């Protein structure tokens, strides 16, 4: 049944009908993903929000998913494009398994595959409107990388997408260090996610944290963070400057 699967009709180059052959803007979007390396592997965090413009429309969207045995992916941006990327990745892993040769794709390879997909779509002016975080462990080697809709990709000890770059990474630059324990890593990520909850309009207070080690992948059940509003400066913001706001 190819009718529905086939790409839309061939179109001319940029110009007249080109608008039917390029993604113009996203509809249902996820916000920041934050990832760090720690002693035993990688930790990823993302909330479960799917925004529709300024409306916080969906609140149980899973934006962290396992990929094969050795990797996890976190996505921000257009959710339908992320669902399509998951289909590509599931097919990639399937083919890898069908070789049945004892070898399996590690996080570096998956990240590279994604980079090629994203960059090639960008060159055709029809991007997958996402920023992705790819983390994993294979044979003791930890890997954490990111790639976005224009094909920019890099690896680091800590990465983030969207607002996370502006709010979470400075915290991580200050407080991340080699050999964080699991508890320290989770607390650090929660600190980042709390700041994002305070300061990112598209954040929702329901998140998941994913862990990947040599042993495998676990993604936590959804949970919510406590927030803190009990400050005298909040209760009386205009004390000392009556009339201000």
């Amino acid at each position: 049944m190819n009718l529905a699967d086939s790409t839309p009709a061939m179109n001319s180059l940029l110009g007249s009908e080109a608008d039917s052959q390029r993604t113009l803007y996203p509809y249902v979007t996820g916000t920041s993903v934050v990832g760090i390396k720690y002693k035993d592997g990688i930790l990823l965090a993302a909330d479960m929000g799917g925004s529709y413009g300024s409306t916080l429309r969906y609140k149980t969207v899973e934006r962290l998913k396992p990929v094969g045995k050795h990797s996890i992916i976190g996505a921000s941006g257009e959710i339908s494009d992320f669902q399509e990327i998951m289909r590509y990745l599931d097919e990639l892993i399937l083919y890898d398994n069908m070789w049945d040769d004892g070898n399996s794709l590690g996080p570096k390879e998956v990240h590279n595959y994604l980079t090629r997909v994203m960059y090639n779509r960008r060159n055709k002016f029809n991007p997958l409107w996402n920023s992705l975080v790819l983390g994993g462990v294979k044979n003791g080697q930890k890997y954490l990388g990111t790639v976005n809709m224009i094909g920019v990709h890099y690896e680091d000890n800590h990465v983030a997408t969207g607002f996370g770059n502006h709010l979470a990474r400075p915290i991580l630059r200050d407080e991340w260090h080699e050999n964080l324990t699991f508890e320290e890593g989770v607390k650090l990520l929660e600190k980042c996610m709390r700041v994002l909850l305070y300061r990112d309009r598209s954040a929702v207070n329901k998140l998941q944290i994913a862990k990947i080690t040599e042993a495998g992948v676990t993604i936590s059940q959804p949970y919510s963070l406590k927030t803190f509003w009990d400050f005298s400066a909040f209760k009386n913001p205009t004390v000392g400057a009556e009339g201000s706001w």
Partner: protein
Amino acid sequence: MDSGDVNAPHSMGTTIIGVTYDGGVVLGADSRTSTGMYVANRASDKITQLTDNVYVCRSGSAADSQIVSDYVRYFLHQHTIQLGQPSTVKVAANLVRLLSYNNKNMLQTGLIVGGWDKYEGGKIYGIPLGGTVLELPFTIGGSGSSYLYGFFDQAWKEGMTREEAEQLVVKAVSLAIARDGASGGVVRTVTINKDGVTRKFYPGDTLPLWHEEMEPQNSLLDTLSAASPEPMVS
């Protein structure tokens, strides 16, 4: 994130709802189809059959939602023959996704797929603009849905009975009609469970009255004669 207000997702005429309950699903919709400010059809049927056990609520462009439904009905029909048994709700939802996602630049339709199959029971799938698919306990769509987020946040609960679910849907569509100019007419519901499909029809006069709405009367003259000597107040 956004490239200007012109590109923010905009809502579409209609109110549509899909809700699961203990044993099945209830789909609901208003009946107004508008072309600009004119109501082209005041009694449309926006809940369309895909198979015996799967229906879809349509919102957005009438043409786009109709053609997507027609294609999906066609594919599902073939699928049912080849499978030898009723297709699942998930398959129907995925077919809708394929069309919505692969033609996202051209289509402007938000859909809610709901039905019952023997493997998963009653299921609701929301498929908004762009082609994202989300399996949810309930979902709302269309321009009228903006007025219902708060209502459902408060009124929705897990494990309702069939009657509770139907009443919730009717109340919700009716509330949306009260405030959304692009929604109106009658409330239609379709309930699907293991025993089959039931269509219900709630004309405007059977719906509750909300704030600042008055009991309709045949004519002023009715109140003129019955009331006090000075019913016409200057």
